[in-house]
């Protein structure tokens, strides 16, 4: 069982504002899904390595090279506020 407190904490971590009604519904649905995925406990995975990609991916290396980045400032920062060259956001740390 996932508790309402845990869901509240998750909402905070994920920066998603949830109403109390939604909180309750979310707890129920997450529970339903977690019950379903508990099926995996039937599988013995000792000595199995995790697979992180669609197949055994290997590192890809290339030379660092300079490319012309053909960017359109208006398209790239459509909602951003600027002060000179700097992106303007709300104060994060109090004075």
């Amino acid at each position, binding site marked *: 069982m996932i508790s309402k407190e*845990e869901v509240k904490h998750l909402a905070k971590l994920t920066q998603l504002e949830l109403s109390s009604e939604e909180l309750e519904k979310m707890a129920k649905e997450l529970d*339903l899904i977690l019950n379903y995925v508990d099926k995996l406990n039937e*599988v013995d995975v000792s000595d199995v390595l995790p697979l992180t990609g*669609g*197949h055994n991916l290997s590192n890809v290396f290339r030379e660092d090279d300079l490319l012309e980045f053909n960017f359109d400032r208006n398209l*790239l920062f459509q909602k951003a506020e600027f002060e000179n060259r700097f992106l303007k956001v*709300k104060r994060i740390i109090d004075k």
Partner: protein
Amino acid sequence: MELENLTIKELHKLLINREVSAQELTKFYLNRIADKDQDIKAFLSLNDKALEQAQEADKILKTEKDLPLLFAIPVAIKDNILIKGLPATAGSKILENYKASYDATVIIKLKQQRVIFLGKTNLDEFAMGSSTENSAFFKTKNPNDLERVPGGSSGGSAASVSAKMAKFALGTDTGGSIRQPASFCGVAGLKPTYGSVSRFGAIALASSLDQIGPLANTIEDLAVAFEAISGLDKFDATTSPLADFKGLSESLTDKPLDIKNLKIGVPVEFFEEGINDKVKQAVKIAISWYEKQGAKIIDIHLPYSPYGLATYYLILPAEVSANLARYDGVRYGLKVEAPTFQEVFSKTRGIGIGTEPRRRIMLGTFALSAGYYDAYYNKAQKVRRLIMEDFQKAFEKVDVLLTPTSPYTAFKFNEKIDPVSMYLSDVYTVPVNLAGIPAVSINCGFEKAGDKKLPIGLQIIGNHFQEEIILKTAYLFDKYAPKPEF
């Protein structure tokens, strides 16, 4: 002349011989959209420069004969793939007014061939869903029965191809999002090998599972589109040098498979519980058609595949929770004003991100959190390896696997309310994404429902980078096999 029923190669000939102009062809498709899309609602936005681009194409047609196959072919693109300067909402309110700042690699490749982009198609929000009902904007309808869903998440792309409002479309497939809607709408859809097609410029859902792929009315068109978009890309380090499919579409028709040498595996686990009888019947008949043509049919066991869906619903949300963290209201997309940074962040996401993505972000954050990481996420990744190894063992014995694409045909709107029952639509497609292998869905018959015929999909699965074999296997069926009704 029914332009909508011609293949890409046939249309190409008409264009080159100037029996039809690029403008006529584009107008023809725009008229079909104007006529049909009021009911079907496959498109979220149309490209208002389509006719202008067709005009440019006509100028080139006047002087040049040696043009690529997709020249002036009208195409629809799922709205989570970026075309510079055009909207890219991903079906979400948080990107409602966003315009793409660059082209996806697949779009650059299509632009090099000078396709005509008709518009952007509807999808479940951030490609999370199996019915397109999760779109933040509107529901797309299945052209075969307007009371039913087109499948999802590439529901708009599948519906646009099914109603012949585009010659082909691009979609994305993370757990079945190309194949399942292709099945529901009665068209062909390909989920390529992980690493065959660049993901650069596709709005990320789960980066270890996502692939872009085509949807079309015939396997021949599907192969032409796939050849055009695939290949190694320096902007996506997971693309592979093995992704070289030059000549595939020509080989498809000119060097067809010798079916007598084909070994087909039938995974027993895919025909057990939860499958609709008519779907089972249609797929069994398709398998026996191959057998009659001389293919060898072998029963296969994939013992870990029944754990595919549970594995998927841990790995996918974990990746989602990381990928969707970028929607913070600072640089682009929706921004809700509030006094503090924290509030801007949480209110923007609270309003902008819909129910299903929220659920998955929360679930993924939970599966990755301290104390649960090993029990959930790490465990799922280990089972993922076992699922892939199942397939690899199978491909030591057979060339392709034949399964249903989905356990049932298109369902009605609001029929699947709880999340797990919706997730079960993808029970046969998800293991393929986990294993990173390619699969194609092709129509193999119809379920009769009142006066409507609901398409049934056959899934043909191959080993890594074996797109040629699965497409050739599908091509023979597409061309010669009957499509019975049940």
